[in-house]
């Protein structure tokens, strides 16, 4: 088998599984589960095979024409390089463990067939994004991912919240995707190709052809999919879906697709565009961190944390690329943005998936109780979950040397410091906030005494749930060390990540250590172990209210749709009625009506008569064409 066939197999395995599930296993949960898990296993095995021997690390591309519409040739193809290999590894690896987790987590759900079918469709679409070698193909899978996300968020059909959330996710994503599509079209228009390799060659040969507009339009897609600042509203709501979905789609892979896309098309971003990207990321990071304090729902907290980390990644991309532009040394300078963001993406995928799965385990054990103030003391009840969750918290807080988050965050902070001091300060503050709210989550949920009946009776979950937790915990802790990864995919993290040197190095460690440890300790002090009420709410109601308000984004959007857009529509409607319908149409109608009075005699309502008129017309036409009427007309 050549490389292309293996990639094809990786891509098609989940599609086949989804198809089989759709056809045969909608009602047969066990079969669906087996198929879906099997597909995930095949993906994992195939990609491991790729990384341990099959693929030598050089960029590999295979393309075939899919459809030709006139001059427009739509291709499908795979581009496997350092970047997509890393992403492939993340999707395959995390995806498999989350599939395994779902087997345990969803075991009492009635619609498991649909769920696993959706998971398979998702894997297919996500892998499509990862492997796509051109923007059109990527866009197709981009939309497919949106669809499967929609389907999975709305998994609990009977719940209104889920329905609303899935709708919201879909619509908000459309807003971003519109810009994305326009961006792709402009790209095609400007460069005459959408193939990534060719694009890059064109851009490198002719760097001034890239405009800021293209970058920003393409970034629109990232805004939607990676839930960046103005379009972030869907992600927290998406937590209405089942927890494995939140872990896989809304934490580890799909939302990271935006960041991945940035890395894939980094050469299309000008410096101005990179500034915008960086600042969007920074603002998202800090705002989401603040909002996390106003939440009581365990999954919502994690959702805001995801937002914040995604902001980190986007900021990391922007700042890293800028760093590469200005301070770059060596041939990998251009890749610093990719390195910084992708490194954080990788570690984040592990520890956020771990955290979500841990929360899933908790929710499962507490009979679908999601309020953290009704939990408490779960560490003793669920030792494995508790410990692994704690490791996740350490990882996200970024405690030096024993967490993956430390290394990746470190890189981002370093490039921030080197390029943009305000951003650096904000990001460092965000790091502190991150540790704080994660500490809050852990302290309240796992320490102290149980605060409710459900938490009282919580039990450790089955092995299918615990095993993924343990595996992911190992990667969350050790994810910063290269030894853990297959050799073939180390390139990005080993060589592309900007490394601080000398004093910077020490300074970074210091800042990280202070921010993370301080945050955790502060959490312990402020909130206290296993408290039943939110201490922040009781002591500083104003701060809590600000945090809870989420800066009124949802309200503003709601207001916009309800008031502005509808009123605009009403005005347009009025103008339409007055001018077009009134003057033009009615006026024309009046003329036509006068004619109609004359012509009404012809209108008998009988089809046969019309045919006769038609025939008369035909004869006239024929006579004219034959030249019989020439004499009359002249």
């Amino acid at each position, binding site marked *: 088998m050549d490389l292309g066939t293996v990639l094809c197999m990786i891509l098609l395995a989940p599609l086949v599984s989804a198809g089989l599930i759709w056809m045969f296993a909608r009602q047969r949960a066990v079969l669906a589960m087996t198929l879906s898990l099997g597909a995930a296993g095949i993906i994992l095995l195939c990609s491991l095979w790729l990384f341990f021997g099959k693929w030598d690390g050089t960029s590999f591309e295979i393309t075939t024409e899919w*459809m*030709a519409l006139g001059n427009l040739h739509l291709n499908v193809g795979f581009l496997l390089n350092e970047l997509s290999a890393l992403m492939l590894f993340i999707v395959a690896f995390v995806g498999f463990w989350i599939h395994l987790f779902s087997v345990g987590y969803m075991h009492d759900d009635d619609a498991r067939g649909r769920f696993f079918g959706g998971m398979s469709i998702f894997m297919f679409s996500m892998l499509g994004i990862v492997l796509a070698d051109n923007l059109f193909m990527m866009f197709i899978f981009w939309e497919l991912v949106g669809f499967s996300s929609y389907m999975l968020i709305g998994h609990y059909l009977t719940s209104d919240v889920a329905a609303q959330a899935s709708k919201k996710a879909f619509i908000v994503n459309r807003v971003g995707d519109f810009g994305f599509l326009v961006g792709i079209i402009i790209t095609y228009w400007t460069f005459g190709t959408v193939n990534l390799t060719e694009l890059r060659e064109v851009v490198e040969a002719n760097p001034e052809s890239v405009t800021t507009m293209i970058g920003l339009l393409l970034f629109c897609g990232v805004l939607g999919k990676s839930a960046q600042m103005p379009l972030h509203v869907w992600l927290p709501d998406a937590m209405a879906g089942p927890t494995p979905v939140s872990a896989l789609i809304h934490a580890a892979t799909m939302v990271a697709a935006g960041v991945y896309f940035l890395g894939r098309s980094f050469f299309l971003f000008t410096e101005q565009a990179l500034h915008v990207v960086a600042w969007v990321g920074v603002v998202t990071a800090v705002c989401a961190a603040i909002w996390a304090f106003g939440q009581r729902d365990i999954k919502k907290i994690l959702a805001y944390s995801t937002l914040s980390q995604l902001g980190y990644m986007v900021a990391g991309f922007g700042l890293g690329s800028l760093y590469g532009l200005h301070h770059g040394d060596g041939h990998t300078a251009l890749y610093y943005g990719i390195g910084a963001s992708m490194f954080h993406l990788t570690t984040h995928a592990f520890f956020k998936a771990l955290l979500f799965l841990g929360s899933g385990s908790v929710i499962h054990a507490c009979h679908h109780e999601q309020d953290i103030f009704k939990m408490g003391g779960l560490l003793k009840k669920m030792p494995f979950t508790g410990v692994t969750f704690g490791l996740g918290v350490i990882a996200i807080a970024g405690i030096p040397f024993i967490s993956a988050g430390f290394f990746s965050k470190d890189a981002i902070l370093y490039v921030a410091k080197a390029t943009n001091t305000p951003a650096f300060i904000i990001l460092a503050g965000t790091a502190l906030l991150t540790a704080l709210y994660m500490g809050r989550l852990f302290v309240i949920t796992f320490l102290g005494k149980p605060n409710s009946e459900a938490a009282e009776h919580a039990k450790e979950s089955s092995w299918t749930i615990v095993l993924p937790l343990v595996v992911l915990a190992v990667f969350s802790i050790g994810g910063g060390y290269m030894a853990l990864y297959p050799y073939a995919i180390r390139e990005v993290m080993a060589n592309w990540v900007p490394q601080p040197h000398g004093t910077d190095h020490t300074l970074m460690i210091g800042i990280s250590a202070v921010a993370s440890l301080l945050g955790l300790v502060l959490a312990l002090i402020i909130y206290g172990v296993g408290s039943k009420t939110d201490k922040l709410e009781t002591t500083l109601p104003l701060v809590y209210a600000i945090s809870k308000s989420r800066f009124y984004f949802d309200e503003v959007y709601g207001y916009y749709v309800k008031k502005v857009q509808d009123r605009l529509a009403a005005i347009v409607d009025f103008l339409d009625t007055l001018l077009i319908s009134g003057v033009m149409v009615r006026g024309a109608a009046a003329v036509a009506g006068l004619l109609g009075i004359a012509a009404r005699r012809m209108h008998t309502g009988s089809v046969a008569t019309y045919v006769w008129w038609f*025939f008369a017309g035909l*004869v006239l036409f024929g006579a004219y064409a034959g030249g019989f009427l020439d004499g009359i007309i002249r």
Partner: protein
Amino acid sequence: MKEIFFLIFAVLTILTALCVPLSRKPVNAAMNMLVSFVGLAALFVLLETYFLAVLQVMVYAGAIVVLFLFIIMLMDANQSPPPKLVRFLASFAALALLAVGGYYLVFGCGSGPYPEISAAAPAALSRTFGVELFTKYLLPFQMTGFMLLIAMVGVIVVSRKHEPETTGGEK
């Protein structure tokens, strides 16, 4: 030999086609149409387009006329009243006009010389169809498929039985 076959099948096609509008009962019309279509398929065979001939039989004779028969039988459509003489004469005049006009158009002055038949029969092999369809005419082909889907959905929607109150037709 070929001329004789052409004459036989052309006459068969035309005569049975003529019987379609002239037969009183819809069933007779449908059966005449069936024979006409089969005759037409034979003409296709004479033109050496075997694939289309078979397709003609398969789709028109095998499916479309059956559908007609099916509907006629289901609706139990009685024979219509004979058309009025005036109408008949007028229609016949139209037929004559078209036929004579067509004759002049085809055989009359100014048309032709027509190309002679050359050795190659373009559509002798079904493979040729496949290759052309899936390369040059892929988009129309897909569109046709889409069209079939739309037609299918449309038929289901149109022929679904409505509730009496939504029908709303006054008798």
